[in-house]
C-alpha cells in the first residue's frame, strides 16, 4: 500500500517516515529503508510528483563541484595553498590553478596568498574520499581585499541571494556595499562602516526569518525604513 505520511512543506526530523510503499522515490535528504522513505535531516518536505525531497533547514556545508565558495588560507605548502572551507573538509588550491600571474620557481607563495587571506574560488573537484580541489581561474574568482567576512547558515544562502539575485542586490543598493555570497555560507562585504553593519544586520534577519512568507518585501520595508531610500526589487541576470 502506498501512503504519504507527510504534507508538502511539513517540517520533519531525521528518522521520520515520510512515505510507505514503492509508489514514491526518495530524493535529496531522504533514503529508502525497506519500503519506507525516511528523512535524513531536519528540513521542509517538498513533494515533487513521485519524488519526495527535503529542503534542509540546518547542517554544515558539503563541498560540491561547481560551487563558488569563500575560503580562508590556513597553510602555504610547497605546491599550493590549503584552505578552510567552512565545512568538515579543507580544500587544496594547487599552484597551477591559483593565478594567471607568472609564479617563478622557488617564489615565496605567501606573496600571492598569505595566511588568513580570504579567496573566492570555485570547487573544481571533490573525490569520493572528500578531497576537495578548488581553482581560482575564472570570472569573479579573486583574493578579497579589505571588507569583512561573516559566517551564516549555508542552507540560507539561496534566501540571501534571492530569486535571480534580487535579495542580495537589494542589500547592495541599500547599504552601498559590495557583497559576495559563497555557497559555503561565508559572506564577504565591503563598504563604509555603517553600510557594512546594515548589511550584516539584514543578513542576520534573513537567516532567522527566511521561513516566514513575504520575506523579500519585509526586508525591503526594513531597509527602506532604516536608510530612508526608496528601493526596488530587481532581478539580476
Amino acid at each position: 500500500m502506498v501512503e504519504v505520511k507527510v504534507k508538502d512543506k511539513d517540517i520533519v526530523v531525521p528518522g521520520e517516515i515520510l512515505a510507505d510503499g514503492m509508489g514514491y522515490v526518495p530524493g535529496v535528504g531522504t533514503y529508502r529503508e525497506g519500503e519506507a522513505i525516511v528523512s535524513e535531516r531536519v528540513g521542509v518536505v517538498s513533494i515533487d510528483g513521485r519524488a519526495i525531497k527535503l529542503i534542509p533547514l540546518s547542517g554544515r556545508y558539503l563541498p560540491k563541484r561547481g560551487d563558488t565558495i569563500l575560503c580562508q588560507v590556513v597553510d602555504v605548502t610547497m605546491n599550493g595553498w590549503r584552505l578552510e572551507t567552512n565545512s568538515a573538509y579543507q580544500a587544496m588550491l594547487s599552484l597551477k590553478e591559483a593565478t594567471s600571474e607568472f609564479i617563478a620557481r622557488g617564489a615565496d607563495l605567501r606573496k600571492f596568498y598569505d595566511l588568513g587571506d580570504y579567496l573566492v574560488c570555485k570547487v573544481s573537484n571533490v573525490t569520493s574520499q572528500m578531497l576537495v580541489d578548488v581553482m581560482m581561474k575564472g570570472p569573479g574568482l579573486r583574493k578579497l581585499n579589505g571588507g569583512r567576512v561573516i559566517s551564516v547558515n549555508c542552507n540560507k544562502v539561496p534566501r540571501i541571494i534571492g530569486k535571480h539575485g534580487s535579495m542580495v542586490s537589494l542589500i547592495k543598493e541599500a547599504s552601498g556595499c559590495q557583497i559576495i555570497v559563497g555557497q559555503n555560507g561565508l559572506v564577504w562585504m565591503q563598504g563604509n562602516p555603517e553600510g557594512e553593519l546594515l548589511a550584516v544586520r539584514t543578513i542576520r534577519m534573513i537567516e532567522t526569518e527566511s521561513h516566514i512568507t513575504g520575506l523579500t518585501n519585509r526586508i525591503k520595508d526594513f531597509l527602506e525604513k532604516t536608510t530612508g531610500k526608496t528601493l526596488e526589487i530587481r532581478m539580476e541576470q
Partner: protein
Amino acid sequence: MYSELRSQVLKLLSVHTRLDGRKPHEYRKPMKVEYGVVKTAEGSAKVTIGETEVIAGVKLEIMSPYPDTPDEGSIMVGVELLPLSSPEFEPGPPSIRAVELARVVDRGIRESKAIDFKSLCLEKGEKAWMIVIDICTFNDAGNLFDASALAALAAIKNTKFPELVDGKIVYKEKTDQGIDVQEEPISVTVLKIGDHFIIDPDNEEELVAEARLTVALMSNGQLCALQKGGDSALTLDDISKMIDLAAEGSKTLRGLL
C-alpha cells in the same frame, strides 16, 4: 598574517568605530553576572559579556598552611579553556594561555588584598582554609581576561563556608558565613592596535592587536596589578593612556556586581 583584517580594523578605528559598530571604549551587550549557578560548589557565578561566557566555581578545602605563613590560608586559581568554547582550544594539560589567565586572575585577587588570608586560618601551623577557584570558559568570543576575573570575584562573593564537624568538612551542609571580601578588584584589558586603544576586544581584534595590558583596579581607583601581553612594546605614555581607559571601563564592570 591577518594583514587584511588588521587594515580593516584600523580603518574602522580611525573613524572611532569597530567591526560590530561599537565605540572603542564601549563594552559589548548583554553584560550580566548570575550567582549560584553551580549547586555542588560553595560559591559560583556566571559572567556573560556579549557572546563570551565564563563560569567560576569556588571550592573550600582544608590545607596545612605554608611554613613561611603559618597563620594564613591561601587561594588557588585554575582555568580550564574548554574545547567547546573555541576551535583554538584543545583538551589536555593547561595551555600557556590558560596558565596566564589563571595567574592574572589570581594576582588581581591576591594583590588587592581582597581576602584577608589570616581570617582563613583555623589552627596556626596546622589547618587553614584553601579557596580553590576554578574557571571554565563556555564560549570564547574575546576578552576572557575581564570575564574570568569578574566571574572569580563574583563567585567568591557568593561563597558560603560548609559545616565543620570534628574538623571534617561536611560539604552538603552550608553555613550562613561567607568569605569576608575586603576589596573588589576589577580587571580591565586594554588592547593596542596601531595608535588606538580599545577595551573589551572580540576575537578578531585579539588576533590583530600588537599589545595588551590587563589592569586590575580597586574600588578607590588604586592600581593593584598589571599584566602585559602581545608582541610589541609599550611606551610609558601608552601605559598611562591604557590605565586611564581601564579606569573608565572598570566602572561599567563594577556596576554589574
